[in-house]
């Protein structure tokens, strides 16, 4: 799996990515979309990542980018 932008988050990221991939292929794609096997690992990884992004001064740039996704959300989050 690819590395994190923050080396100190690599370990928790790896654990989360492995969990996610298993969940995606074995549950999500088989129709079990409501399961949340990896939530705990994700929140651990996210805590580490958000701290690192803040330290790198990237948080406000990302906040701006995330605001601009409402356009694609409107198009691709609807039922097709």
């Amino acid at each position, binding site marked *: 799996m*690819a590395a994190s932008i923050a080396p100190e988050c690599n370990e928790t990221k790896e654990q989360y990515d492995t969990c996610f991939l298993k969940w995606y292929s074995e549950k*999500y794609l088989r129709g079990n979309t409501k399961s949340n096997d990896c939530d705990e690992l994700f929140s651990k990884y996210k805590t580490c990542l958000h701290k690192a992004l803040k330290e790198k001064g990237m948080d406000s740039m990302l906040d701006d980018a*995330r605001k601009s996704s409402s356009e*694609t959300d409107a198009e691709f989050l609807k*039922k097709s």
Partner: protein
Amino acid sequence: MKVFSSTCTFDYSWDEVSTANWRKYCPWNDKVTHVVGVDTLSRTVDSKTGILRTERLITCNQSVPQWVSSLFGGSATSHVYEVSYVDPASKKVTMCSTNLTWSNVLSVRETVVYRPSSISPTTNTDFTQEAQITALCGGWQKIKNKVEEASVERFRENAKRGREGFETVLEMSRRVFGEQRDLEKHLQ
């Protein structure tokens, strides 16, 4: 504005492609060494539609043409923001990316779609990619054109390498999943 687009078909099912897509930038893919980081910012499943929405930050280390860096300066590290949508009901993956670095001089918006192939939907997957590249810098049209052309060229090279590398990831994924299945059968 310039548009770059490409299409291709992978000889793998949509389930396989959409799974392997999550590890497109892994060590199995030695063609995308310019991607040094892939971080997941958020991930949610829409309770009504089952659509999986993921936000990622992609970090690249890539040298730029000398004349570009002398015009705009800047470091070799750049960031891309990607939001993707997986619709399991219609079997469609859509990934939308925008550049975060140099966004005041250049806008690159890419949309990638993976869908079951229209000809053999159970075994093959169609891939389409479209990027709109617009130079935003003020000044001469000539320079804007040059910047756009250079960007399209770089995009074309990366797209080709990305596709070649993804083939390797698909092959490895199939092998590893197969071995895992055999092992599980063996243990039962």
